[in-house]
């Protein structure tokens, strides 16, 4: 037994030392995707297309979960070996871009007009910081309101809500016992449409100072807090991330869910009662929504910017984008491809079509996608205070004052 263990140990050490490190100037680009390891066929489509242009290059692929991606990426940046292309969600790219960690894509976009022309300008504008564009849309989604029509019927609600007041009234009618009326996702700025539809501005026009601390906001948060205490708004709205809220909606005890389109396929897979008759998908009052799209960005440290750009174009337009859409059940930033994709979904997964149809409506009413250099720090300054207020831990006025102070501190600090 002992000899065996020793031999195993020696063998393991030898094995471990063999693979070693890759040569530095190898003709290779590295692409890091965000939580889509199952997306294999489509990725191969990208690689095959890319090899047609650059046959001497190899493509390395890494996939990371969103919670680990920043850790891995930034460690690689420090080590001088960042992946050339990275798939990022939400405002993560802003931290990197504002500190000079990303390649400015504007010259590429201006040069390759035929590519740029395929994209929705409103969507592309999501990745603009100080006049420069740092990302191209990989897949696109934004929030909408899902309705549990069974619960609406039971509560005698015949009309879809068209204003914030109507949402709250409907929620009150549906709530009771185990049932709650409304739930929202809260990560990134996904809950912000609830504020935008009440006319709340987060910062002033110059983006230098908090503008949300008004009597109207106090009244609004007060209302949200009371509804939460009474169980009209589900508490998970303010504490859960993704699995919990969607899981709760799947359980059939939540009247309305404010979430982005991919939530549909998720809760549909968990609950057999979900179909287009029982779950409605509508735009929020006023058309407001917060995008939760993914972009491809290019690391500043890349040794192969031209090749990387070619890969990015392949992945985000034409056949490559279509492979993305069908492979992950998402819409893309390419208008022509989306038409094909909608036809594909109508045939393959008709149930998801109503939700997807909302995704390219009201593109002028996107909110919560402000290009702050310190996006993450601002969330950290604002959200815990809001959370304390709506969960009844802190007086609303006090919480908003404190949030204002913290937000201003972030905006003014270096």
């Amino acid at each position, binding site marked *: 037994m002992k000899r065996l263990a020793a031999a195993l140990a020696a063998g393991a050490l030898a094995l471990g030392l063999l693979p070693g490190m890759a040569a530095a100037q190898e003709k290779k680009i590295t692409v890091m995707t965000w939580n889509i390891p199952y997306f294999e066929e489509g990725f191969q489509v990208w690689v095959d297309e890319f090899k047609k242009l650059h046959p001497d290059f190899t493509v390395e692929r890494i996939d990371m979960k969103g919670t680990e991606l920043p850790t891995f990426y930034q*460690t690689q940046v420090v080590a001088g070996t960042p992946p050339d292309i990275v798939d990022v969600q939400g405002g993560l790219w802003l931290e990197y871009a504002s500190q000079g960690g990303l390649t400015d894509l504007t010259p590429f976009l201006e040069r390759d007009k035929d590519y740029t022309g395929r994209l929705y300008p409103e969507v592309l504008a999501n990745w603009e910081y100080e006049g420069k564009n740092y990302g191209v849309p990989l897949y696109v989604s934004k929030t909408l309101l899902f309705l549990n029509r069974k619960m609406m019927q039971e509560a005698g609600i015949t009309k879809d809500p068209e204003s914030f007041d109507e949402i709250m009234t409907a929620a009150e009618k549906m709530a009771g016992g185990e049932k709650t009326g409304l739930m929202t996702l809260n990560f990134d700025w996904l809950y912000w449409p609830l504020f935008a539809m009440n006319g709340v501005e987060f910062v002033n026009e110059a983006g230098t100072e908090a503008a949300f601390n008004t009597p109207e906001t106090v009244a609004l948060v007060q209302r949200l807090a009371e509804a939460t205490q009474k169980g009209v708004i589900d508490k998970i709205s303010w504490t859960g991330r993704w699995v919990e809220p969607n899981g709760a909606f799947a359980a059939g005890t939540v009247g309305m869910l404010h979430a982005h389109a991919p939530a549909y396929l998720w809760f549909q897979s968990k609950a057999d009662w979900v179909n287009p008759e029982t779950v409605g998908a509508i735009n929020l009052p006023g058309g407001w929504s917060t995008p939760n799209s993914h972009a491809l960005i290019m690391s500043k440290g890349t040794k192969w910017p031209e090749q990387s750009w070619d890969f990015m174009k392949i992945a985000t337009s034409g056949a490559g984008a279509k492979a993305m859409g069908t492979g992950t059940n998402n819409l893309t930033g390419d208008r022509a491809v989306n038409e094909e994709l909608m036809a594909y979904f109508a045939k393959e997964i008709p149930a998801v079509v109503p939700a997807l149809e909302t995704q390219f409506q009201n593109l002028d009413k996107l909110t919560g996608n402000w290009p702050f250099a310190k996006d993450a720090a601002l969330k950290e300054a604002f959200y815990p205070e809001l959370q304390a207020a709506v969960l009844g831990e802190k007086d609303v006025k006090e919480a908003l004052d404190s949030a204002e102070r913290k937000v201003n501190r972030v905006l003014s600090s270096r």
Partner: protein
Amino acid sequence: MHRYPRWPVHVALLAVSTIMLVPFYWVLKTSLTGENIFAFPPALWPENPHPFFYVDVWYAIPFFRYLVNSVIVSVVVVAANVVLNGMAGYALTRDFPGKATTILLFLSCMMIPFQVTIIPAYLITSELGLLNSHAGMALPLSSTIVCIFIFKAAFEAIPKSLIDAARIDGVPDWMIVFRIIMPLTKPAIATNVILSFIWSWNSFLWPLVIIRDETMQTLPLGLSRFLSVVEDTTGALYAFCVMVLVPGLVIFLLAQKEFVSGLTSGATKG
């Protein structure tokens, strides 16, 4: 030592066992039925149990490949821990200049959370040429301070007379360690084996950061990968947890049988 009734001990231990087992039972049950854990009221007994989630896990990721990697890393870690910690623990029982400082240094080293060492540790490992390797995954875990102190405590509990007797007989120090002390510290060795195995087996963030090659991934990385495939908190996830847990328990049972049970008779022999 049989002067008191046994049943109160059993009652107390059964109560503790129940508390410890309930969450565990739930993992096992859910891994067999895959119920939505948000269903109410919770079903206490499994309905229609089936092994399909285990099959899913086996095929959804290269489970065997990851298992082999995990085993290799853990074997290296366990072997290194028993030897290195035993040596260091023994050294700390001796008087030498700088002993107090060394102990303080060890204690202080414990107070540095791994999470803040990621970037410098990565750079150093890269300098050593150990990125993307089993050795690189194992190295930071190859000696653990808690285990050094477990050895130290065990060594100190050995009657000094025994070691002195051996010294008088002229047995060299290194032989004292391996021939006299190690056999007498079986519980400490078992503890080292168990703990270092668990730490290495469940290690997640470090392999995540230094492994780029898919064929080098370990089981916890597989969990992360797997989670993104199923985006799920039910059946398959719990099946995966059970599959990853079993080796840890087996090691515990083996170590326990091998070292602990034979102990009561062995400890006083010398």
